[in-house]
């Protein structure tokens, strides 16, 4: 095997004193000492969550306070770890949202199973389920980490709506059929 001898340059005087290296190192230290810090005092301080972040899945209501989920069960179908479980029910005929006809009686997301993939949000035809900015989930029992409908709505809150699909439907119903 051929051997290659690397030639080493002898150190200059300045290099031999190590002073320029110490000074340039200290310059970096000093610069960072007076810059604002990049770390956060978690949990007292919270990071800004960028848009599109996939946090805990939540259920949302529209600005009129109507629950948007109609329990079509597509999220239950698409959910890869089968974390979602919906019990569908009919909305009673005397309710204000009777024209929507269907709403979940129970909506469960097992957060021990959820993998935060966001497929439920992507598949939802009613824009009712969103992975928002909550990233820290803790609990002391398995039951506690199966999120029920009221908890999911509490976490989700209200989001703006650009369609008002069912309100339009109701106003069309009120306007009635020109034939009759």
């Amino acid at each position: 095997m051929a051997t290659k001898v690397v030639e080493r340059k002898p150190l200059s005087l300045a290099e031999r004193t190590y002073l320029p290296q110490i000074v340039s190192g200290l310059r970096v230290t000093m610069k960072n000492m007076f810059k604002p810090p990049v770390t956060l005092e978690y949990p007292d301080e919270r990071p800004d969550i960028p848009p599109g972040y996939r946090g805990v899945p939540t259920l949302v209501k529209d600005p009129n306070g109507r629950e948007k989920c109609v329990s079509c069960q597509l999220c239950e179908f698409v959910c890869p770890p089968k974390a979602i479980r919906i019990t569908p029910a009919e909305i009673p005929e005397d309710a204000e949202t009777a024209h929507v006809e269907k709403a979940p009686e129970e909506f469960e997301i097992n957060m021990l199973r959820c993998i935060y993939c966001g497929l439920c949000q992507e598949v939802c035809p009613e824009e009712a389920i969103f992975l928002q900015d909550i990233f820290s989930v803790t609990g002391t029992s398995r039951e506690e980490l199966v999120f029920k409908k009221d908890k999911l709505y509490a976490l989700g809150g209200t989001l703006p709506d650009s369609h008002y699909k069912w309100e339009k439907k109701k106003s069309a119903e009120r306007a009635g059929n020109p034939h009759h």
Partner: protein
Amino acid sequence: MSEGQEDKRIPIFVDGEEVKVNPGTNLIEAVAQAGKEVPHYCYHPKLSVVGNCRMCLVEMGMPGRDRATGEPMLEEDGSPKIMWVPKPVIACATNAAPGMHVKTESPVVKECREGVMEFLLVNHPLDCPICDQAGECRLQEFATDYGRGYSRFIEQKNVKPKRTRLGPRVMLDDERCILCSRCIRFCEEVAEDPVLGFIDRGSYTTLTAFPGRELANNYSLNTVDICPVGALTSTDFRFKMRVWFLKETDSVDTESSVGCNTVVGSREGKIYRITPRRNDHVNDTWMPDSGRTLYKQVEAENRLTGYSIDGKPCAPDEAMSLAASLLKGHRVAIVGSGRLSVEEQYLLRLARETLGGGAPTFLVGRTGEGDGKLLSADRNPNTRGALLSGLVDTLPKEDLHDLAHLIADGAVDTLLVAGEDLTEAGVTREQLKRVQIVYMGTHHNDTSSVAKVEIPLLAVFEKSGTFVNQQFRVQKFAQAVPGPKGVLFGLSNFTRLLDALGGTARIAPSPANVWTAMSRDVPEFADLRFEDIPRTGTVVDDARFAELPFVEGPGLHFEPKRAEAAADA
């Protein structure tokens, strides 16, 4: 086609490919035989043709003939010249003719379908997320194939009633209706109870029941099955479960000896609905409404779910050995049931033979009025199975007075009851208290409450097996859901009892194994294996029972062999 028989089928050409079809076949069926599909809404194979949805438009042409000479016209390359009809025709109302050419995939046909779909979707609501039909909706399917993906319709959609109650079991959403009129034709032609019709004109056309009438006949839910969209929905199944979750299992309707073929839809061990399965020899594509709610018995309050001795829970083996010691060496009578499967009846017969063979055996007859369609007078699904398997050799009576006399005379001191409530059949509780009872059944009742040993059985949805219907057609049913926790699976209850009694024939508790044994004992089943029974069933020889006065009257695809029975019905 067998030797000597003339092949009457005629050749037609579907997109250039030759298929032979029977004369009189319409183009939808003919194209289906070529392995292709013509999309359609109003056409249904078991109803008359109206041709009002226009979805099945295809191009059609015949080989041309010279008018002067009558000679076939040829292209330059020598192939026959096809004279295409200038406009597309509807496939459902066009019958195949010899040499006919059909185009099902041409640009014109595709354009026709896209046009029809656009018009159908103009007033159709965007209800798919809440619609029960989603997943098995023809409109949804063909909208993905031929839909535009967006709507050019900017006007207000039509408003129609969303929750019309057509009858006790059927709800109508008029906005979803595409006016195919299948349900109207079904009520007129099959149910023979014409109560539905269209009112108003154009896009205001609305399906409704005639004033003062409602869709209440026992076949009303078939309209829900044939509705190609979600306009007609079943009040029982409405909003319960999306259809894509349902596991479908072939089963048989147990409410009468017709044995309608069914599909059981279940998810995670819970049954949600029962729908008919097509069998052109038995029930076409229909079934009675009364058979669709039978799944509720599976989760009934009084369901028997555990083994017990004197009302105290025990292990299966304890129950079996006590049952065997009660039965052995006593004066035993056996009460079987026309609701048990053929295999269970046969194992009961083996149990009787193990006990010496002399035990009097009874069956409880159930009769009701037959409706001349799919509900026969014999309300036991498997009376003929009991005859074939050799459990009994006469037709059952509705009451068990003969058994009551035997108990009163002291000729019987132990009863083996499988699947029947004796108090309903004319045996009093006092009489039952005089004997020791081994009760096998699916539910608690007055007989089980005085029984020494209770052995829980599986309901028809929880086991596999066969029934023999009024045509002597052996029909298979499959297990849809698991049985209650702790109940022995399959036929184990019967085979273990047989083992406990000291039976020499040791049979593994599956229908296939029982059939192996049964084909040796029952001449009609000699060449039959369980695995070989087709989905639509197979008819066995009924010559041995030709003289028995069966109670069934004529029905769909059934003519009673004995004229007297027909006259009685």
